[in-house]
Structure formats: structure tokens, C-alpha cells
């Protein structure tokens, strides 16, 4: 009962300080904005995908009706691939504005197409979005600092410190209750709009619970830091502003300096082939084939597709099966470069996940985007699903081309459809 009274007393005390109430209200308003803009953005993306699916279908049916052989059908038809935003994406847009989430591909060499990016406005990406993940990872610590830096020093400056310490039975409990009450108010103000938003988008209860837990943990980390710094003897004689400066220094170190230094180190530690090299290599391989004897293409192609070994005879200088075979060879030639390019991204991401352990805001950001399926891992999984789909298309067309099947539009009804393998992949690492 006495605990309850303590909390009630502190809450009434805090509520009388207008600027603290204003801070909490501001946090609430900001959270509402973050959730609203996040939901608007995901809704726009869902609507875009729905429109694209429809247009893509109309376009493909239209194109297919004009074809007279499977080779041209494969050449002229594009196929839409996409990664829907998860119900949690509104809270953490993550890498969705840098990596593509929609892509149309066709049967040509994939390495020449996959890097095309229908990216968002780069100036907006540079500034970054104001989403819930940003609010809790970068901004919330600042709010905690502003609320708690003068926990003890504020009372000293007001001349009440000695009186308070004398009249209370447990000093520590007093400051702790006061810090906890303010942090709790801040946390509720920030989380309330999120929970409402998550209900609107239909996020799973488990994910909502996870995000709430992360918010609380991150809030607790900063409350502890602010509480501990204020309690250290060395800081006891300092005025509020100096305590806050020290706290801001800590914030600066772990929110800005560690990620920036980490990024620089990671960049130099993990070398990556330049993207330009991949596409140049791929292009030489594909276009060079026109000037090489057919056997050059067939040798390379049969190395990976031995089942077509006895179907490589050519009746003309141009046949679609040969055309698609050298497209395949182009991809095979660029494959080592391309996979080390992707490995570099993954290794950099992996290293970043280690560094994140010494930067709680970074860790929060990473866990949030992992839950929301908007991290590098999820975007790479989407790319992998495009590659898989492209391989499926090849598997579909090769028998038609090599067996000289007579053309019929109806056969194209069995074209593999893009099923979003990316959606099922949950990323476990933070």
C-alpha cells in the first residue's frame, strides 16, 4: 500500500510541473504522427501492389495474345515480383526505401535486370522517415535525458534536496519512484498510439508484445543510465546542465559515434566487388556469344543442364533455345562476382549486428526491423525469391523450347506464379 501511495504522490508532484507534462504530451503527439505516417505509407504500398498485380496481368495477357512462339513469348512477357509490407512494417520502414520491394523481370539474363531499382525519392530517403522505430531508438533516449537529468540536482537547485533526504526513510526508493513514474508516463505516451496502430493493421499479438517489450527494455536502459549517472558521487556536486551534458555525451557516443565508426570499420573490413563489374562481365558474356561458335555456348550451358545434351542441334543461325542458353551462360559467368557482392552485403550486415550490441539504439532499430521484416536480411530474402522465381521460369520454358513444342497460348496458363517466399522467412538475428 505504501508503494502505491509513493507512486501516487510522485505522480501528483510530476503532474504539477507543466513542462514535464508537456514533454510527455509531445512524445504522445509524435508517436501518433509516426504511427499515422507509417500506416499511410504501408497502405500506399499495399494499394500500389494491388494495382501493379492487375496491370501486370492485363499486360501479360495482352502480350501473350500477340505471340506465335514460346521464345518470343518469353522475350516479351514481364513478370511482377513484390514484397508486401508486413503488418508491422508501419512501425519500422527499415531498408524498404533503399532496397526495392517491387520488380518486373523476364527470361533474359537475370544479372542484367536484378539491380534495377524502383527506389523512393532519394532526398526523402536521405533525411529518413519518422517512424516508430526511429522514435524509440533515437528520440526516446533524448526525452529520458530531458526528463531525468535533474532528478537530484533539480531538487538541490530548488533548495529542497536536504529536506527531502531527511524526511524520507529510503532515499534510493524516493529517486527511483520519481524516475520510474516519469519514464512510465513517457513509455505509455509513446506505446499507446503504436498499440492502436498495430490493432488497425492486424499485427500478430506476439509481435506487438515483442515491440512493447523492446520499447520497455530500451526505456529501462536509458532510465538506468540517467539514474545511475545522476547518482554517481562525482556528479553529485554538478548542476543539472552539466549532468545533462554528460548524458548527452553518452547519447552521442552510442547513438552516433559507435554506428559511424562501426560503419567505417566494416566498410574497410569487408571488401566487395563493385556492382559495375558484375553487369559489365555479364554483358560481355551475353553479347560475346553472338560472335562465338554455338559450341562455346552449349559447352557452358550443358555443364549445368546436361539433360538437354542431345537437343542442341541448330536448324538456323538463330534459335530461341540457343538465345536463352547464352543468357543463362551470361548469368553463370557473372555468378561468382554476383554472389560475392551479395555475400559482402550479408557479411557487413552480420558485423553490424555484433556492433549493435554496444549501441542499444542501434540494437533497438535492428530488432524492430527484424520483427517488421524490413531489415537487410528480409530484403535479401526478397531478392533470393526473385532469383528462385526466375529459375522457375527457366524450368518452365526450357522443355518447351528444347522439345520444340508447338505453340499454344493455353500452355502459358501454367506459367509459374510468383509466390512470396520472402514473406515466410523470419529473420532471427537482430
Amino acid at each position: 500500500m505504501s508503494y502505491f501511495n509513493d507512486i501516487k504522490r510522485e505522480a501528483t508532484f510530476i503532474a504539477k510541473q507543466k513542462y514535464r507534462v508537456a514533454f510527455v504530451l509531445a512524445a504522445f503527439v509524435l508517436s501518433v504522427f509516426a504511427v499515422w505516417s507509417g500506416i499511410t505509407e504501408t497502405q500506399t504500398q499495399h494499394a500500389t501492389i494491388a494495382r501493379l498485380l492487375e496491370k501486370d496481368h492485363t499486360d501479360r495477357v495482352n502480350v501473350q495474345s500477340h505471340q506465335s512462339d514460346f521464345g518470343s513469348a518469353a522475350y516479351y512477357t514481364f513478370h511482377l515480383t513484390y514484397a508486401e509490407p508486413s503488418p508491422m512494417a508501419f512501425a519500422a520502414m527499415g531498408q524498404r526505401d533503399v532496397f526495392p520491394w517491387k520488380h518486373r523481370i523476364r527470361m533474359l539474363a537475370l544479372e542484367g535486370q536484378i539491380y534495377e531499382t524502383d527506389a523512393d525519392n532519394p532526398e526523402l530517403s536521405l533525411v529518413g522517415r519518422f517512424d516508430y522505430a526511429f522514435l524509440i531508438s533515437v528520440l526516446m533516449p533524448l526525452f529520458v535525458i530531458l526528463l531525468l537529468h535533474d532528478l537530484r540536482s533539480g531538487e538541490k537547485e530548488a533548495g529542497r534536496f536536504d529536506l527531502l533526504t531527511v524526511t524520507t526513510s529510503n532515499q534510493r526508493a524516493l529517486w527511483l519512484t520519481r524516475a520510474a513514474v516519469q519514464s512510465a508516463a513517457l513509455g505509455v505516451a509513446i506505446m499507446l498510439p503504436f498499440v492502436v496502430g498495430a490493432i488497425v493493421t492486424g499485427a500478430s499479438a506476439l509481435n506487438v508484445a515483442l515491440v512493447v517489450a523492446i520499447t520497455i527494455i530500451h526505456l529501462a536502459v536509458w532510465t538506468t543510465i540517467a539514474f545511475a549517472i545522476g547518482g554517481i558521487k562525482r556528479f553529485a556536486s554538478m548542476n543539472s546542465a552539466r549532468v545533462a551534458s554528460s548524458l548527452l555525451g553518452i547519447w552521442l557516443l552510442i547513438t552516433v559515434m559507435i554506428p559511424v565508426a562501426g560503419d567505417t570499420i566494416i566498410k574497410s573490413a569487408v571488401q566487395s566487388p563493385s556492382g559495375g563489374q558484375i553487369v559489365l562481365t555479364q554483358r560481355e558474356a551475353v553479347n560475346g556469344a553472338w560472335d562465338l561458335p554455338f559450341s562455346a555456348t552449349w559447352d557452358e550451358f550443358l555443364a549445368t543442364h546436361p539433360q538437354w545434351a542431345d537437343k542442341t542441334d541448330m536448324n538456323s543461325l538463330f534459335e530461341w533455345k540457343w538465345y536463352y542458353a547464352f543468357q543463362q551462360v551470361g548469368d553463370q559467368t557473372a555468378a561468382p562476382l554476383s554472389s560475392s557482392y551479395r555475400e559482402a552485403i550479408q557479411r557487413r550486415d552480420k558485423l553490424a549486428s555484433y556492433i549493435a550490441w554496444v549501441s542499444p539504439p542501434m540494437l533497438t532499430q535492428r530488432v524492430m526491423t527484424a520483427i517488421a521484416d524490413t531489415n537487410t536480411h528480409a530484403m535479401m530474402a526478397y531478392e533470393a525469391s526473385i532469383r528462385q522465381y526466375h529459375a522457375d521460369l527457366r524450368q518452365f520454358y526450357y522443355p518447351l523450347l528444347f522439345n520444340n513444342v508447338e505453340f499454344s497460348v493455353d500452355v502459358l496458363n501454367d506459367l509459374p506464379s510468383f509466390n512470396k517466399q520472402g514473406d515466410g522467412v523470419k529473420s532471427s538475428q537482430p
Partner: protein
Amino acid sequence: METIKHIFTDEWRYWQRTKLGITVLLIGLVLTLAAVVVNTMNIQQAAFERKQLQETAEARFVDQPDRHPHRMVHYGHYVFRTPSQLSTVEPGVDAYTGTSIFLEGHRQNSAIFADQRQSSGMTRFSSLSPSFLLQILAPLFVIIVGFASVTREKEAGTLNIMITQGLSLSQLFVGKYLALFCGSLLFILPVGIASIFATLNGEATVITLGFFVGYCFYMAVWCGVVIGISSLFNKSSASFASSISMWVLLCILVPRIGSSTAAAIEPSQGKLEADFAVLEALRKLGDGHNAQDPAFAALKANLLAQYDADDVSELPVNFRGVVAQYSEQKLTDVLNRFAEARMDTELAQTQVSRWFGWLSPTVAIRTFSMAMAGTNIETHHRFLREAEILRFDFVQSLNKVHADHLDYNHDVNRYKNEDTATAAKVDASHWQVLSSFSFAPAPTMDRIQQSLSAATQLLFWVLLTVGFLVVAIRRVKP
């Protein structure tokens, strides 16, 4: 004057004595210096790499063997965007836009290989670019150094003494203000050095000077805000909390809210979706690969009449090449119309976020700085347009070779046997039609014009700060 100088030196002496001020100033200086050095090295590395790739791409193109000219249209070409001089200080959108485009016939591809996709993903909030340090962190340092400049005198009671000794408040303010402003100049010192370097490397002096002055204005605004707030409060702690709140609001919140608002109220369609409309329009034009397409009947009739021929095989030009030229022209008109519309929407979206410069000096300086450095979205659009000009130029040159230097009868029989295939090739010397590409940011005057509205916003902030200071002086209660 003597008094102002006195107050000025006093302020510096105070920072030295308390260590906090001088430490923060030095940390700021070292950070910006490190950022300028690291960033310059990165940019130079990127510039070198892209220049090399550009040369490789050009060399490979002209080194191609004898071929059918249309093969070269599909062989295509790559262009790479070299970074601008001042991107050593303001990298702008460079990391967020593709740095390379594949140019080929019948298509406008998007820019590929944005650096941000290759990074660790840790630099989405902060980055080691000097511009981030100056725009976001420097104001924080100014606050930590200067929040107590006036409140300190109030708390110690020295303000009263100074006033009774006949010191005018405006003298006190000017002295304190100049002290803080000179301190903040330490942060932009490395930028000044980088600007001089950029000038030596060929950047226009008007640009580098304007760029530097812009940052001075920005610092001037923040110094004013800090001194003003400091004089409004009686306690250092209150002054500190208010200044920091101001910083969170102006440097972190407003820019991001601006970007989210722009995305929400002015959504852009995206290239993929716009491409469907392009396809729809293109389908009406006919397929340039197929000279029999009914869309080219009028063209055929005209040509036959012009040369008084009965059949396309009798024409002195290769009809297939003529069709390729004709349809590429039509197609490019359509592609450009849609591309321009897309850039317009993207620009409209950006303008929404730039409008927030009236609400935050940080947005104003960012817009200004990117416009001056030539690293804003307009520069990216310029890259897209220049790449398109090159694309159209070499594709049409090849189509002209196709029309003029390749016999029609050889052309239609090209897949018959080895001999006809060889006959349907043209000499590799024709590949010299490719002109070399080197990207430079917009001319000086264009960049100044682009930065005008942001410069106005900055001036507005300077005036607002002056007004704020005047009000603050009047309200000082010793």
C-alpha cells in the same frame, strides 16, 4: 568597442577555465576535420573507381568486333556518375541514388547500385559526412558551450554589477554573441579548407564561397537562438533544457516530419507503375524490330514514293534501318514525356519536404548546401537526362549506320547461313559513334538559382534570430 572585446576575451577565458567549453569546441573541430578527411578519401576513391569503369565501358564498346549494327544497340553502354567537387563536404543524395545506368535501345533503365545498399545499414540516422556534423551536431555543441552565457551572470549576480557599472546590455550581448560565433566557426574551419581545395580543383569561387557563407549563417542562427534563450531564463538548467528541446525539434524532428509528410501527401507513382502507361503508349507505335508492322505502312509508302521504287528492296537505304530510326525517335518522345512527368512528381514531393525550411533552419541549410554542392535530386535528374541524351545519340547513330551501310537484302537474309550472316555485319570502325561521357554538376548560375529559395529561408532565419535577440535583450531582468 573596447568593452565588447573585453567581454569577448572574458567568455573565451571562462571556457578555458571550466574546461567544458574548450573541450566541446575541440571535439567538434576534431570530428569535422576527421569527417572531412575520411569523406574526401571516400569520394576520391569513388570518383576514381567510377572514372575507371566509365573508361572500361567506353573502351569495350569501341573494341567490339564487326557486327550487325542492331546487335550494338542491344549491347548497349554503361554510364557512371562521378561525384561533384563539394560532395567531399556535402555528399547529399549520392549514396541513395544509383551511380550507374545501362543504356540500350528501346528502353530507359533506372540508375543502379546505390551505395547505401552496400553499407552496413548503420548510417541511416547519422553519418560521418561533414554535412551531418555541421547541420545536426554542431548546433548541439554550440548549445553545450553557450547555454549559460547569460544565465551564469544572472546566477552569480554579476549581471547586476556590470549594469550598475554602466555596461550597456547590447554591448554585453554583442560581446557574448561574437565569442560564441567565433567558437562555432571552429567547426566550419575544416569545411573552409575543403572549400578552398574544391576551388583549386576547379569549382567556381562563387559556389564555394557561397557554400561557406551559408554555413556561417546557419551557425549565426544557432548562436542567436542559444544566447537568446539563455537571456530569457534565470536558471542555467532551464536555459539548457529549453535549448536542447529546441535542438531536438529543429534538427531532428522537423526534417523527418517533413520527409514523412511529403511521402504521405504527395505520393509518387514509382517507375514500375508508370512503365505500364508507357507500354500502353508504346504499343500504339509498333515494334521497331518488325518492319512489316502496319504502324510503319505510311512511312513505307512515303519512302517508296520519294525514291520512286516499287519495293523496299529497291530503296537506296535499308528500310529496316529506317524503321529502327523512325520508331526509336517516336518511342523516345514517349519515354521522355513520361520520364519528365515522373521527375516532376518527384520534384513536387521534394518541394513539400523543402517547404519545412520555413519551420527549421536545418532543412533550409540542407537544401541550400545540396543545391550549391550539386548533390541534390535535381543533379540526379540532370544525370538521368544527360544519360538519356547519350543513349538516344548513340542508338540513333547506330540506326543510321544500319540504314546507310547495310544492304537490305543482306539484312533480311542474315540468319540463312554463315555467309549471309557475315554479309549482314558492318565494320567495327562504326562503333566510334559513341561519344565519351563525363558527368559534371549543373553550371554555376543554375546551382545558385536552385539554392535561392533555401537562401531566402536562411535569411529569414537570420532575421528571425535578430528579432528574437532584440526582444530577448529588452526582456532581460537582471
